[in-house]
């Protein structure tokens, strides 16, 4: 198993609608990542792209379509996909290319252009459901997340106010992020009083739909040591997918995420994640998901994440900063690009390059996580200085 480093990162603005095509956004993020690494496209051995449903961009086999924008022309190029978990999975698929010795330098790109679909990108989510047993009921994505949120609240007796604190924190953190789409100074009351979409989910509990791209460059140890004094190592990767039958599982706790995290912790020789992880970018398309995921990652005991949030532990100046970037709730949610944004954030934080977003305490080890499918997949990457 060869050591693998992250040597550069880049991203576009995240916005509701962008003029750039998906190819163009992929290029802009990739170019920036290569520039930070001081590399040329000819140095790149292979490209891995991540992007969520084809129904958003409106191109069948969209990995093929996006190929040239991601720098894949006349190279080994492929696309990997685990729903909303894709963003943090793309670097994992690139990791095994380098770790296996098949490639030395891999460009890793996350892209999503949700705006082309009319009348609203949300519509595509109808088609993620079982065509026979669920679609005829008129199901939407919001249904299942509100069902999960409700179950989580019920089992651990969590209040809507506690959950709202996450939206308040992340949107405020995003004020310092130059890509942010929905950065704001809001209060718990604003969240509670925002329009109910699918109770208990309200407007301000949810991340927006977005266009955007983000990219990183991975390199083998030899290459990394040659091109940078400051490599960030990928020391653990993990992923796990639960059963399709989401109505047969207890939604109060993400077991699949616990298993994904344990896979990554084993690889990174971490036995007490709460102590050994300095900060984390956990997936927060909805505010309750940040809490849910902290527990699945064992950064908090079951039902304990709301308490840590209330006590300020997860703030940028807290003991365990969570989503110092501003997360999906603040920066935006171009699905696969949003996960990649978290990878980029951990990289910048570990190098001390996060500027106003830099967490207060010194950090050596960070974690990025994403989640998706029918509330069924967890993807985890651990990075260290």
């Amino acid at each position: 198993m060869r050591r693998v480093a992250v040597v550069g990162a880049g991203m576009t603005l995240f916005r509701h609608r962008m003029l750039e095509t998906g190819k163009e956004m992929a290029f802009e993020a990739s170019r920036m990542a290569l520039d930070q690494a001081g590399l040329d496209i000819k140095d790149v051995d292979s490209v891995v792209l991540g992007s969520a449903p084809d129904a958003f961009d409106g191109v069948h086999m969209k990995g093929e379509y996006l190929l040239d924008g991601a720098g894949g022309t006349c190279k080994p190029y492929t696309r990997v996909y685990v729903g909303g978990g894709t963003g943090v999975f793309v670097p994992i698929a690139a990791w095994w290319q380098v770790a296996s010795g098949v490639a030395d330098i891999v460009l890793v790109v996350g892209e999503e252009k949700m705006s082309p679909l009319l009348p609203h990108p949300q519509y595509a989510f109808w088609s993620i459901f079982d065509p026979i047993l669920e679609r005829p009921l008129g199901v939407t994505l919001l249904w299942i997340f509100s069902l999960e949120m409700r179950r989580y609240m019920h089992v651990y007796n969590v209040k809507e106010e506690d959950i709202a604190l996450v939206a308040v924190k992340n949107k405020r953190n995003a004020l310092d992020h130059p890509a942010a789409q929905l950065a704001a100074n809001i209060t718990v009351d604003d969240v509670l009083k925002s329009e109910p979409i699918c109770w208990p989910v309200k407007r301000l509990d949810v991340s927006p739909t977005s266009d955007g791209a983000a990219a990183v460059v991975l390199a083998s140890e030899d290459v990394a040591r040659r091109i940078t004094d400051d490599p960030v190592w990928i020391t653990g990767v993990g992923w796990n997918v639960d059963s399709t039958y989401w109505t047969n599982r207890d939604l109060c706790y993400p077991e699949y995420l616990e298993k994904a995290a344990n896979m990554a912790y084993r690889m990174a020789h971490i036995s007490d994640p709460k102590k050994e992880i300095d900060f984390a970018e956990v997936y927060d398309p909805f505010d309750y998901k940040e809490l849910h995921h902290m527990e699945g990652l064992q950064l908090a005991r079951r039902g304990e994440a709301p308490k840590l949030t209330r006590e300020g532990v997860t703030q940028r100046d807290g003991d365990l900063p969570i989503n110092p970037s501003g997360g999906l709730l603040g920066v935006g949610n171009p699905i696969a690009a949003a996960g990649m944004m978290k990878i980029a954030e951990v990289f910048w934080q570990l190098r001390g390059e996060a500027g106003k977003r830099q967490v207060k305490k010194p950090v050596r080890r960070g974690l990025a996580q994403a989640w998706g499918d029918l509330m069924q997949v967890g993807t985890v990457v651990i990075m260290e200085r």
Partner: protein
Amino acid sequence: MESKKTLPGTPIAGAEWDNEVYSFRKHSVQLRYAWDAGSAVSGFLEGLKEGRILGRRCNRCMRVLVPPRAFCERCFRSTDEWVEVKDTGKINTYSVSYVNNDASRRDKPLIVAVIEIDEASPGMGFLHVLGEVEPSKVHVDMKVKAVWKPRDERVGAITDIKYFKPLEV
């Protein structure tokens, strides 16, 4: 990254999008599919048409799986037999939807729920909607019963159950 004042990207404002100040190309398709339901779901749909909810039993782990499938995902083997379960159950979780699947607002909110079906293995159930109850009266663990469409309107679909209603008021 902080040194870079602006990140690449050209946002399109709402009015620019609506008035099409940029060049756009439109394309609409109606993609049609005919999914083979397979043995397990075909049997389940046939049961619904008859007003019955069917599950499959795995004789190794002895679970009764609802919705039914041809394989047990835990034991990785074929399931063994059909089991008719009750058309009652309890609410595992629920929510109140104010939007349609294209993000437009609904005229009337809809209560949706995961219902654990009685006589299926613990925690086993499916997604459906609730009726004959106000949102404020619904709670987790509430007992509910299927309200079926009249026999001659049932076609072998999940919507042969109109909704679930509270078992008693």
